[in-house]
């Protein structure tokens, strides 16, 4: 397919709903998704799980509707397609099955979603320590249940994974939670607004009740995480609760501190980003329709700021409606009329966010971890080394990166940018504004041979 009206990158809730709305209104849509099946991480494998793995819950199963809506003659879905460059134009270059190609369209929607916030502490690189969301992907895609696991950290996903494990007959050994009573009390001022999303709140309370009924021990206000490996491969997880040192032996330590927008692709595309202090993360700047400062580039879903799956689906719909207007398929009045319902859904879905952001904010020890913590997993750079380099004068992402190679490995900073910012912010004490780190293409590593085959002009660079 060479000529399409819209290229959607990412087949999660935002991308799927945008593609469906656009296709039903006559646009030809090319959808590029890196995974083998549509659904995104939240609805991963949802079509394949219909009628089985019911312990994943009803909210998950509902995602199947979005996947089915992609069955439309105007939508071409290319799974296993990794986008590695987004240029002005807009023009998108992706790799699939070992070959790369380029497509242009008047509009490109970046619906690439979120990633789990890295949770760095001494020992977080050991086999046996894993993000809770990663374990959930294994549950969804392979029916693999964490055995003898401890869930540690904070946030709604921690409760959801615990409840799914309980329903699947593999309850966690314990929940070690970092949120404090004081933090929860501080978040209470957001409760009136959160009532617009009362259904979500109730669902959360239901999860906690389930964990309690299952008799899973819960520790709260935990701090000073540390993991070491036992001789048999088990993880010895030590932490403190109210000044008391504790430790647990487990097969898996599943950590979580919320999710953050995955901004590598949006930064590399030249879209402006700003710091969201409530969510403790960079996010791309866009208007209420998802339009950005780059002509033809739009963003919807968690990649534009964390709101969850329902907010993402609503935002995808809004962006599609705005693109329809820009392409002359409808006027502004018709767009606004059709937008009323998704905008109301977006409002409801986002209402609970300020409460969740405040109640489950990551503690300082994960922003600026202990010196013996690996910050950059690829290049094996420790927090102590970062602090030393900051002491030599550098005060920005780029100078630290070039001093230490922190963020220069294959993940290109996805696992360390947040921690680097935390350390810079803690050490600089507000003396210098910290600008978002620059992201470059290729957005994922590409073999030289594959890149060479794309050569448009034969030119000797020497």
């Amino acid at each position: 397919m060479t000529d399409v009206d819209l290229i959607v990158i990412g087949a999660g809730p935002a991308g799927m709903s945008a593609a469906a709305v656009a296709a039903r209104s006559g646009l030809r849509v090319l959808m590029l998704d890196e995974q083998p099946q549509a659904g995104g991480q939240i609805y991963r494998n949802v079509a394949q799980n219909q009628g089985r793995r019911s312990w994943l819950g009803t909210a998950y199963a509902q995602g199947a509707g979005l996947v089915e809506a992609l069955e439309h003659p105007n939508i071409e879905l290319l799974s296993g397609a990794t986008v590695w460059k987004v240029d002005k134009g807009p023009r998108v270059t992706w790799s699939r099955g070992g070959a790369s190609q380029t497509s242009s369209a008047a509009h490109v929607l970046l619906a690439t979603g979120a990633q789990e916030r890295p949770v760095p502490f001494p020992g977080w690189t050991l086999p046996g320590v894993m993000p809770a969301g990663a374990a959930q992907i294994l549950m969804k895609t392979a029916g693999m249940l964490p055995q003898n696991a401890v869930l540690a950290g904070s946030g709604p996903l921690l409760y959801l994974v615990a409840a799914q494990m309980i329903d699947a007959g593999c309850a966690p050994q314990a929940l070690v939670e970092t949120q404090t009573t004081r933090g929860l009390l501080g978040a209470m001022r957001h409760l009136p607004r959160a009532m617009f999303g009362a259904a979500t709140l109730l669902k959360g309370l239901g999860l906690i009740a389930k964990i309690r009924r299952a008799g899973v021990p819960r520790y709260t206000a935990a701090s000073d995480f540390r993991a070491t490996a036992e001789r048999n491969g088990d993880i010895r997880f030590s932490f403190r609760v109210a000044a008391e040192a504790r430790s647990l032996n487990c097969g898996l330590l599943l950590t979580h501190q919320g999710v953050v927008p995955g901004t590598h692709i949006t930064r590399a595309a030249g879209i402006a980003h700003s710091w969201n202090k409530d969510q403790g993360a960079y996010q791309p700047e866009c208007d209420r329709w998802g339009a950005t400062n780059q002509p033809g580039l739009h963003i919807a879903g968690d990649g534009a700021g964390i709101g969850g799956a329902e907010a993402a689906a609503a935002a995808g719909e809004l962006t599609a409606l705005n693109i329809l207007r820009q392409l002359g398929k409808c006027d502004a009045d018709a767009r606004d009329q059709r937008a009323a319902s998704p905008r109301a859904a977006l409002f409801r879905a986002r209402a609970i966010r300020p409460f969740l952001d405040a109640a489950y904010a990551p503690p300082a020890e994960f922003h600026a971890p202990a010196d013996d913590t690996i910050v950059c997993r690829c290049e094996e750079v420790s927090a102590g080394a970062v602090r030393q380099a900051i002491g030599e004068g550098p005060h920005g992402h780029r100078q630290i990166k070039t001093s230490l190679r922190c963020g220069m490995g294959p993940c290109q900073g996805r696992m360390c940018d947040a921690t680097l910012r935390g350390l810079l912010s803690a050490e600089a004490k507000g003396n210098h504004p910290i600008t978002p780190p620059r992201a470059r293409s290729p957005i994922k590593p590409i073999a030289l041979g594959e890149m060479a085959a794309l050569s448009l002009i034969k030119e000797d660079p020497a």
Partner: protein
Amino acid sequence: MSVASRFRTLPDTGDCVQFYLDDLPVTAPAGVTLAAALLAHSGDWTRQTAQGAPRTAFCMMGICFDCLVEVDGTPNTQACMTPVREGMVVRRQLGLRSLNGGEHD
């Protein structure tokens, strides 16, 4: 690989495939990623970093690059983005890859 898997895999009625990990045959359900198959097989490391630290699959969504293994002679392959296939030849990596694949020493 002496460390037991950290996961219990629910019985599935679907097909199975057999692949080779460091020359030993391993069975996995068809349709899962290589990273899932490796984690279901063992709780041990699947690569060692340049400094010799043990690592295995971590993010399961293609962004952390800790699940790199050699697949059919291609080093630094992301196991979590690779569907497991019948007859696949998989090797754990020690340190950096070499120019022509495999380990450099």
